[in-house]
């Protein structure tokens, strides 16, 4: 539906709120920046169903004719090798990982799910498969079933229901936040529009946006834009420095979304390590998982 020309947003998911006019958000111990690192475990299907949808470049390489070993293999590298490097770096810097796992990964890689749990990760919903984005092509019933399939797969693999959600390739229909809250999800990372969490609207209960820094998503920067890896380290460090400065006045969030098939490559991982060193050696930085940040925000909302 085209926008109506009136005050506020052109949809019903959240209120218009310019950051300069908000109350003050304080993090635990008066930290200036809350740091959340989301790690995506995406499963690309050998042959996705015909009615599924994905972006042309999802999976790293442009589409080739079936069978595309390289496209699948490139992603699979993340599950076999890259993830362990990424988790090691996060552990080194005392950052509890927030791992987004899709249903097909949860069902087919029990070792990996258990490993993430053993490393203290929070597991969040990540759809069914990389090759099955949520879009408005889905009926409401199909989308509800899709979300249930994802939540159920994680619940059986981990023993508890996920609190958070990141859609494959940030995909949503115009109903997604409400259907997620109906399925018990309490926060969503698809909306890349802010430097603080904020409430989403749903008739089914409380749900929050935990916005990722889109430009610092490794797929956006390294794969789509082809920023070189040294510059990527600098983007993270420079971005953090400004958030750290601005966070003195009003707490900021730095949510990184990383993909082990990409950032976990041997030549790249050191740059992530150095960027996180730059961040974590400062005082006033609170590294936390998605639900820890959202819970804090919920219990300590910004005050005038």
């Amino acid at each position, binding site marked *: 539906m085209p926008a109506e020309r009136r005050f506020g947003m052109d949809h019903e998911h959240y209120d218009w709120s310019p950051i*300069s006019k908000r109350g003050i958000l304080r993090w635990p111990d008066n930290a200036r920046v809350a740091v959340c690192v989301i790690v995506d475990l995406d499963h690309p299907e050998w042959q996705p169903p015909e009615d599924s949808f994905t972006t042309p470049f999802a999976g790293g390489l442009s589409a080739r004719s079936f069978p595309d070993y390289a496209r699948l293999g490139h992603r699979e590298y993340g599950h076999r090798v890259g993830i362990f490097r990424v988790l090691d770096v996060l552990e080194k810097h005392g950052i509890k990982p927030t791992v987004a796992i899709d249903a097909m990964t949860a069902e087919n890689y029990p070792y990996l799910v258990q490993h993430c749990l053993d490393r203290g990760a929070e597991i969040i919903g990540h759809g069914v498969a990389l090759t099955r984005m949520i879009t408005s092509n889905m009926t409401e019933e199909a989308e509800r079933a899709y979300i249930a399939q994802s939540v159920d797969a994680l619940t059986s693999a981990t023993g508890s229901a996920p609190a958070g959600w990141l859609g494959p390739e940030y995909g949503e229909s115009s109903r997604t936040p409400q259907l997620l809250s109906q399925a018990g999800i309490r926060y969503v990372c698809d909306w890349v529009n802010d430097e603080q969490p904020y409430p989403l609207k749903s008739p089914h209960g409380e749900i929050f946006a935990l916005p990722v820094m889109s430009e610092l998503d490794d797929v956006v920067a390294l794969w789509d834009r082809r920023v*070189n890896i040294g510059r990527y380290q600098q983007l993270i460090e420079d971005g953090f420095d400004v958030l750290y400065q601005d966070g003195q006045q009003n707490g900021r969030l730095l949510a990184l979304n990383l993909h082990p098939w990409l950032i976990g490559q041997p030549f790249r991982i050191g740059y992530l390590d150095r960027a996180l060193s730059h961040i974590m050696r400062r005082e006033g930085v609170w590294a936390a998982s998605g639900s820890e940040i959202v819970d804090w925000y919920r219990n300590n909302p910004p005050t005038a």
Partner: protein
Amino acid sequence: MPLPPDRVDYSPIIDRPPIKWPNGARVALWIAPNVEHYEYEPEFDGHRDPWPRTPYPDVQAYSYRDYGNRVGFWRMLEVLDKHNIRCCVSLNMAVLEHFPEVGEAMMQRDYDFMSHGIYNTRYLNTYTEEQEREFYRDTIDTLKRHTGKQLKGMLGPAISGTERTPDLMAEAGLIYHTDWMHDDQPVPIKVKSGKLVSVPYSIELNDAPLFRQHYEGDYFAEICKAQFDQLYQEGAESGRVMCIALHPYLTGQPHRAKYLDEILGYIMSHDGVWQTTADDIADYYIANYYDQAVDHASRING
């Protein structure tokens, strides 16, 4: 005709009456932040797809741009204020209706506004003549109602237009069009009635096309400074126009804002810079050079 569709006489820059800017300035510098709103579920006009990545909505693309109004705009303002820049905003008029705080912040700073259409997801290309006439009425009225200002110019919404656009702009009383980008000085554009000029905008010194590629803020600073150096040198003979086009969702990112600071610090440290707006450039050019330029071009083209 050198440049179809016979809107512009050819006039080589090496053979023109020289332009003298106010106070002998060499370069007229205008800063054009594109303050925009992209619709969540726009209507596809059958030609240009606002969100080609997925069926609508594309939450990733939408919210990336929404970041501009929620966060990036305010960080960008801090840098512009530090250098006392008076912008000429390329404005999607609906921003004044959806996000009044953004409008108020710009009015407090006495910015000028050129139209950038209503939304950045509504393009002119398929408009009928009457729809386009109504579009100009709407943009003029909306700006007047919210800011008290008279609209003078346009960068087409998402740089779109029709073959009729210059005529209909002039008929509606607008005096400049910035979609042409074919010169380092203003240029008369032929229209059926009234006077219309092109004021140089930039698709090169522009954060949007640049940061879709692998370039980053340091490169933006490098090319803006190099552009300024060259125009400053040439401007000693005949005044030049330099435009820097910005988007709050890009330049307002935490890792980028400092490069805008670097660019403005460098340029504004020079004497002989007229930091102005496209409104004022167009007024000044029409008052002082338009007739001369038309006469000169008609001689060149025999």
